[in-house]
């Protein structure tokens, strides 16, 4: 009984240390971002510009804008996050920090999870700032269940950020890195993109039930988060 108890205690200790590592990486990224503020500000302005350009391109009426706003929001966030994701890993390349990560005995997936959570916070921040602009420029109000947006936005953001962080690490040493990330990310995340855009449109227009898409997003997130966590070690030590 006591042997089982001590094994259990060891497991709990290992788990706590794993999450300790994740929190440590998260704090590092947040601190670096706070001091330079480069990626959040960059993302914000890029997304804003995309919103304005789409508004000029389509000049929608209130009814039409409800149909297209979901798609435009996620397109703007997708393009904005490309820049931020690449930058989040170049931060690790300065001063050979990535080599240090490889050599340390800390679990590599903790580095990935910390960084993905940090990117999630940054993109969520951009969304929170962007939302009022959306409401203003497109004269939006949700005809469906508006509160479901609070579920759809984090799920969609996590799908983008989780895969994005992974593929940004994958394309870290490829030639033409700026091209590789969108090229790999968009086909792989297409089901999630479809889910988030359809769910948002369904909520805004109230014409269909977003529940199917929310379930798809949840399933997608679970599957791909697991795959990313399992395969990150391979990518980090790919030499």
């Amino acid at each position: 009984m006591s042997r089982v108890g001590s094994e259990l205690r060891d497991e709990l200790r290992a788990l706590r240390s794993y999450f300790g590592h994740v929190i440590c990486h998260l704090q590092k990224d947040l601190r670096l971002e706070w001091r330079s503020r480069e990626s959040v500000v960059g993302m914000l302005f890029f997304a804003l510009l995309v919103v304005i350009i789409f508004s000029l391109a389509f000049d929608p009426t209130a009814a039409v804008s409800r149909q297209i706003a979901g798609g435009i929001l996620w397109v703007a966030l997708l393009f904005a996050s490309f820049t931020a994701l690449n930058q989040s890993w170049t931060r690790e390349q300065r001063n050979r920090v990535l080599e240090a990560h490889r050599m340390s005995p800390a679990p590599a997936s903790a580095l990935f999870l910390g960084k993905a959570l940090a990117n999630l916070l940054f993109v969520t921040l951009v969304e929170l700032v962007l939302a009022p602009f959306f409401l203003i420029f497109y004269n939006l109000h949700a005809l469906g269940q508006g509160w479901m947006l609070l579920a759809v936005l984090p799920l969609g953001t996590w799908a983008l950020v989780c895969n994005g962080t992974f593929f940004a690490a994958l394309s870290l040493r490829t030639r033409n890195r700026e091209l590789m990330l969108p090229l790999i990310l968009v086909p792989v995340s297409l089901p999630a993109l479809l889910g988030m855009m359809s769910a948002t449109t369904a909520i805004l227009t109230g014409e269909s039930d977003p529940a199917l898409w929310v379930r798809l997003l949840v399933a997608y997130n679970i599957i791909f988060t697991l795959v990313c966590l399992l395969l990150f070690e391979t990518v980090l030590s790919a030499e």
Partner: protein
Amino acid sequence: MAKRSCIFGVAGMVWVVLTLTAIAYATRLALVVAPTEATMGNVQRIFYYHVPTSMLSLLFPYVNFMASLFYLYWRRRDPLRALTADAVAISAAEVTVVYSSICLLTGMLWGRAAWGIWWTWDARLTSMLLLWLLYVSYLMLRKLSSTGQTQTLAAVLSVFAAIDVPIVYMSIQWWRTQHPAPVFGGGADSGIDPSMMPAFVWNVVGWAMWGIFLLLYRYGLERRRQESEQASALRAIEGTLEIAQ
């Protein structure tokens, strides 16, 4: 250069001859012998190329997936065997891209001739386009990544792509049932007349044999490339070991 048993060469030639025979026979069946379709006329004959290549383009991605898994498994345990798996992986990916390109192009031509449109965002077309995009991105990663990492990164991407293919298919099915698009005649494999079956089956067989031939030929090329790379690396190392007298 390793000596290869000449049985492979002989078997290869036999396979090529059989493949060309099968394709010739299948072409004759498709273009001459099979009956003309009632509504579409002779345009329908492109079906004998379109459907077999589509079916095969769904098979080779999983060859790539299995090979990538073997690569990841053997990477640290038996590196030389892992290289073999990697050669199979890239060959399968290239054949996938070729077959899905043929599927998309023949589909577009057929669609234009039969229904007057080049493209529509229905479930199957969109899923096939995504499959094509995924494996093109695989090949681009192979081309652009730094040497030493290429094989591992490509294997990881292959795992993602293989997991994604069924999810893409399901999600696009749901998307299209939510927003119904024009449905095209229940699909090409519904209600095929029995007199057309021989032509269809022989085309599947012929193009499968061709696909296998391409895979094995490309595998052979890749293995030779890997071996010449290893040989030149070995020569470089041996060069540094020469002791000055």
